[in-house]
């Protein structure tokens, strides 16, 4: 029997520690508390899923292609360097 238990995490607290959880920097005991909350809370489960989706989509941002003028300028710099060696 345990004499002391940490009180459960509140939803409004969970949204503030989610980054520690997702970045894997949360101590094991806190992690267990976080996951115990998720197990009983559909709203926070949806929040965590939204955050995972946000991270995944952010990773899909397209870069613009290099424009021709920039490429020319950079290759010119390259040839200046390669030729001077």
């Amino acid at each position, binding site marked *: 029997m345990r004499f002391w238990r940490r009180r459960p995490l509140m*939803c409004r607290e969970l*949204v503030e520690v989610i980054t520690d959880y997702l970045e894997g920097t949360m101590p094991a005991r806190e992690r267990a508390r976080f996951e115990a909350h998720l197990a009983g809370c559909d709203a926070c489960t949806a929040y965590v899923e939204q*955050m995972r*989706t946000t991270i995944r*989509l*952010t990773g899909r*941002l397209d870069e613009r292609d*290099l424009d021709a003028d920039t490429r020319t300028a*950079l290759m010119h710099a390259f040839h200046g360097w390669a030729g001077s060696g």
Partner: protein
Amino acid sequence: MADPPTTAALSGLSPDERRLVEALRNRDEDAFAELIDRYHESLVRLAMMYVASRAVAEDVAQEAWVGVLRGIDGFQGRSSLRTWIYRILVNTAKTRGVREARSVPFASLGGDGEPAVDPDRFLPVDDRDRPGGWLSPPTDWDGVPEARLLGAETMAVIEAAIEALPSRQAQVIRLRDVEGFSSAEVRQLLDLGEANQRVLLHRARAKVRQALEDYLGEEAA
């Protein structure tokens, strides 16, 4: 010209990066073209967090490439080639002038003045039934088609949300989530402590998520 260090010094690099470094040391034009295709635009974007305009950021990125070429023979391979290139960019950008207007003083980062979610969406912490519980819970995005999630409009929403961030937050989310650097690499590139880096990332992600929720809202409901 000094002899390049032996390839043994590059044993920590991925085969792909080692190939690029060796080719560049041999003055191989294709290797340089490959690198600028991969990284130039992203370097410009990062530079924009430090300087006043796209034009200056372009300049800074071009100057950084010159630094890469000058340094490649002496590159030790202690970090990845990519991290090294970004490091040169950051240093070049800083030299050109940090744009203070967009940055948040670090003293204000530890406070709780900037919650991840609007506090009005939660019950009070002394609520009898569900203290601090959701009043206006987030919806499930499972119903949103993948094509919509990855569509140009959604991407524009994310881009706009990142552009609206204070510059330190924008730098961190770009490097960590857009470019996929590890958090250790991000800390090294931006000279940040672990706690600060995480706070900045937390704030940035929270705002991008909120922008997506606002945008996808009707659809998901």
